Every structure is written in C-alpha cells, then in structure tokens.
C-alpha cells in the first residue's frame, strides 16, 4: 500500500461530493479549452478568409474604414462606387502583379430568414478573378461562357441554401431576369462559399451601374514595397486603400471586446472550481480529523499528510481535467454556436480550434488551480496533532 492508494480510497468515500467537485472542474476545463481554442481558431479562420481573397490590397470608394472592412468579407449595404478608369491607372504601377475589378450589389430578400435579409451579388471579371484565385475549383460546371452573359456561378454554401444545381434557373432580385446556373464551386472554407457570382458587365448593366466598381483587388509582385505603393494610391482622388493586414487588425479589435467577456467567464469558472476544490478538500480534512491524527501517531510526518491531501486534490483535478478536455472536443460545435452569438463578425471557417497543445496547457492549468485550492487544507491537515485526534470525542 502507498500514499496514492490512501488518497484515492478517500475520494471514493464521499462519492456524491467528489462527483460534484469533479463536475465543477470539468466545466472550468471545458470553458478554458474552448476559450483557448477560440482564441486560436478565430484568428486562423480570419487569416484563412483574408488569404483566400488572393489579394493584399483592396481599393474602395472613400468611406468609413470599418464599413469597408466588413464589406470586404461579408458584403453589406451603403455601397459606394468608384469609376472603372481607376483600373488602368493602378495597373500602370510597377509593383502590381494582377488586379481584379468587382461590383457588389445588395438587394433585400423578403424570403431570407424569418424577417428577410440581404442577398449579395458579386459581379466579377471572368478574365481576372479566376486567375487571382487558382484554388477555386468546381463541383459542377465552370465559369461563365462569355464576358457579358446571363449566367450564375454559386459558392458551395450558396448552392445548398438556394438548392440549385447547374442548368437550374434563378431569379435575380431587383430585376425581372432569370439567370442560368452554370457552375457550383467546391467548399473552400472562406467567404467565397456563400457568394453568388455574376459577370461584372452583366451586373453593371442590369443594376444600372455602367462604368462603376465597388472594389478593386490588387495583388502585388512578390518583392514589391507595399507601403510605398500605398503612398502612391493615396494620390488617387476619393479612393480608400484598405490593406488586408489592416482589415484583419480592425476585425480583431472589434472582436477583442467579445473576448473580454469570454475571458471573464473563464476566470469566474476557474475561481468557482478553485473554491470548489478548496471547500471539498477542507471538508474532508475536518471530517477526518481523528483519522489524520491517528496517521500521525502511526508515524506520518507533516509532509506525508500534506502530500496525501495534495494528491487527493491532484486526482480530483486530473479526472475532471481529462473529462473536461474530452467534452470540449466532443461538444466544440455546441460551443461554437454559443460563441457566434457574442461576436460582431464571424469568419466562415470553424471558430474553435482545439489541439493537443491547448489540451495539455489547459490540463496543467487546472491542476495548478486545484493545487492552489488544496494547499490551505493540506497545510491545515499537516498541522493536526495526534493528540487532538485521540482526545476528540466525535
């Protein structure tokens, strides 16, 4: 027999109390793992979305930079326009590798969701857009047959939502026209999955925006000086230059307030777990006053008793920690849905990314917290004198 068995057998003595404490630890571990996973997953997904654009810089008409940032990734209202001539001027610059012009159009769709929603059409240039995004490939069909044609290409999720396959017709809101679906893209995990693509020229015609653009995506040459190039762009009138790094920062700023909430919840969960451990272990020390005294009379040193109590704590925390980590893997989808409610902007990929490193860090964090909670009871127990026990009458 050894000290571990003494600790372990003691935990089995009060099964209900032990279980409740373990449940507390499970919950806090779960919260922590999910939080750390979110911290990582969110940034990953955002990076993914931004890299998925295929360009580092976007030009838009002058406006609010926050609006520009979200517009870029999700589409939005209050669109501003810039003249098409700008493309030539930009292409002229030596730093530029490729550009692609886009015209976004948003319409209210009364049938979307419960109270209606916006549907966004993205007019793209079939000559340059596919080149910018070579990783886009088709589940069915292909890109448009001509530069100006009444055809639609759907992102993977858009196709599922609209329940359309190639050959099907789709009504374009805001017009009387029905377009034919000619292609459905494979899933990319980026914002392209939710897009409805039309040829740029066609969007300009049917929505009466001839010669106008909402965005110009710019890909720079490999070793181009981005900041020098941005300086040049500022000379263009009424143009807003948005670098993707900037977009990312803007969004991360928006999200940081949501993170504070999540961090606070985790902190509270931790405190609760710590006091739960402290309470459970302290109660069990009080209950075993006599027993601990007898162990001392049997030759246990204060440090032996201290160890027994700390091992009990560590056992509680390991069991709870392991189950908590398993839970966070199993239920990361549920947590994801919950977290999405808190956030001003959510990227397309998965928000919570739990990996081994996070699991290990969380496991040790919970053990540390537990041990902190166990120190006071353990010290208290190690100071019990054999005499107190023998004399006590309970």
């Amino acid at each position, binding site marked *: *027999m050894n000290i571990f068995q*003494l600790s372990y057998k003691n935990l089995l003595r009060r099964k209900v109390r032990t279980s409740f404490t373990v449940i507390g630890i499970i919950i806090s571990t779960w919260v922590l793992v999910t939080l750390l996973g979110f911290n990582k997953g969110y940034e990953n997904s955002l990076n993914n979305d931004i890299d998925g654009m295929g360009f580092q810089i976007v030009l838009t008409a002058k406006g609010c930079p926050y609006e520009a940032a979200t517009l870029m990734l999700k589409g939005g209202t209050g669109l501003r326009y810039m003249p098409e001539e700008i493309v030539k001027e930009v292409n002229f610059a030596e730093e530029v590798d490729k550009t692609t012009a886009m015209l976004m159009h948003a319409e209210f769709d009364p049938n979307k969701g419960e109270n209606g929603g916006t549907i966004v059409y993205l007019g793209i240039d079939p000559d340059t857009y596919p080149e910018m995004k070579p990783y886009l490939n088709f589940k069915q069909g292909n890109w448009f047959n001509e530069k100006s044609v009444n055809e639609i290409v759907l992102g993977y999720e858009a196709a599922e939502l609209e329940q359309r396959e190639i050959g099907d017709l789709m009504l374009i809101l805001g017009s009387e026209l029905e377009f034919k679906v000619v292609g459905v893209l494979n899933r990319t995990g980026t914002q392209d999955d939710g897009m409805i693509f039309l040829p740029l020229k066609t969007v300009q015609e049917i929505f009466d925006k001839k010669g106008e653009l909402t965005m110009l995506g710019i890909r720079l040459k490999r070793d181009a000086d981005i900041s020098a190039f941005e300086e040049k762009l500022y000379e263009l009138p009424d143009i807003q230059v948005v670098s993707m790094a900037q977009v990312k920062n803007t969004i991360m700023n928006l999200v940081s307030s949501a993170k504070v909430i999540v961090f606070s919840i985790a902190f509270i969960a931790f405190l609760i777990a710590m006091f739960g451990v402290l309470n459970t272990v302290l109660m069990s020390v009080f209950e075993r006053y006599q027993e601990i005294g007898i162990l001392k009379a*049997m030759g246990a040193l204060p440090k*032996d008793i201290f160890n027994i109590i700390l091992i009990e704590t560590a056992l509680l925390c390991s069991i709870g920690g392991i189950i908590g980590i398993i839970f966070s893997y199993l239920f990361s989808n549920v947590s994801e849905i919950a977290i999405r409610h808190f956030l001003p902007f959510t990227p397309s990929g998965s928000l919570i990314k739990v990996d081994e490193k996070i699991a290990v860090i969380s496991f040790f964090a919970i053990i540390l917290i537990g041990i902190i909670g166990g120190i006071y009871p353990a010290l208290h127990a190690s100071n019990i004198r054999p005499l107190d026990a023998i004399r006590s009458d309970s």
Partner: protein
Amino acid sequence: MNIVEANNLVKIYARGSEKIYALNNISFSIKKGEIVSVIGQSGSGKTTLVNVLGCLDNPSIGSLKIDGQEIFKNTDFVKENLKFSEIELTKIRRKFFGYIFQKFFLIPTLTVKENILLPSVFQKQFIVDEKRLNDITEMLGISKRQNHLPSQLSGGEMQRVAIARALINNPQILIADEPTGNLDSKRSSEIQELLLNLNKNHNITIILVTHNLELAKIGNSIIELFDGQIKKN
C-alpha cells in the same frame, strides 16, 4: 536498563483562567521487558501520563528519557531547555512506540490488511513481508479477516486489528490506553492473554492503562494515580 525514565513530570492545562494540574510531579522508571499498569479514577491523569510517556504530548515541566535519550527537559516554566519538534517526536514514535486506544481508530475505507500495514506506508525502512503479516494476524486470530472492512468485524476483532497495526513495525514499547474499555469480559480476557504473550515471547515493554483491576494484575508494577499524583500504598 531503564527504557523509560520520567522525572518530576508536570502537565498543566488551562481551563479559562483556572489551571489544572493533570500531572503533578510524577517520577518513575520502567525497565525493558516490564509491564506497568496504570490505574486510577476517571480524570486522575492516566491518559495524560501515557500520552506524555508515549511522546504524543509534551509535559509542561520535568524531564523524560526514552532508552537513555533525553526527549524533553524543562526545569522551570520560563525557559525551555530541550523540546523536540513534531518531526523529531514523530521519529521517536516511529522508532519506539506502538499504540492502542479504547477506541480502535481503524480507517473505515481500508481493509483489515491495509489498516494493519498503515504504519509501513510512512516508514519505508520497515519492509513488511507477507510472512510477518501472516504471523501477526495468525497470532491475533484475524488471518481470515484480512480482506474484510472494519465495519464487517466485531468489537473484539477490531481491537485485534488495532493491536496488529500497533505491532507491525516491531515497537519496543506498547502503549495501551484502556484497550478493553469497549469490550465484554470474554474479549477482555482474550486481550489480556495476548498482551501477556507479547510481553513474554516478544519481550515488548507494555504500559497498560485500565480500570479493570484483574487486568492490571498482569503488571510487574502498578501505578495508581490520584489527582495527577502517584498514590503511595
């Protein structure tokens, strides 16, 4: 050779502002291999005495030697000349003493065998082999009970388990504070046999506190306490 030497032991308890002399100037010695019985009315200081002798408690004044080693020495209230720390006392207890009490203090979650082996958990230098365990349980008549929990035993059996636990690390001195206080007369005389056997065949020194005058008679000497003092007779 004296294994225990007590000189002018005084133990004072404070009860509010009142001072209680639980031990009042006690001096005597015990030779190796002796049985000493301690008798006296309830409250006369028997438990206090054996706790001090057994190094479970420090006296207020006096001196105490175990096996020639000075454990405690304090000639007045002001200055402590020698006082062992809890850790040092633990080491003395490990080396010399086994204890049995009126209450058995078995750990309810551990089996009989685990309860008996408890002292060896903390004292790595004692390697308890199966044979020693079997010999002791055999001698105490509890060998068939090794895997039972304390709650499945009778009072007499529980006290035997407590005795086995006290003996497992081969103590030189067994302190027994009213070991038969919770047992009927048949079980009491069995314990009496056991103590005699331990003393005769294993040369264990025994300090035995009891109310039972029959049992006290197994002592080579009998100390009677009255109000914290040894009653001369």
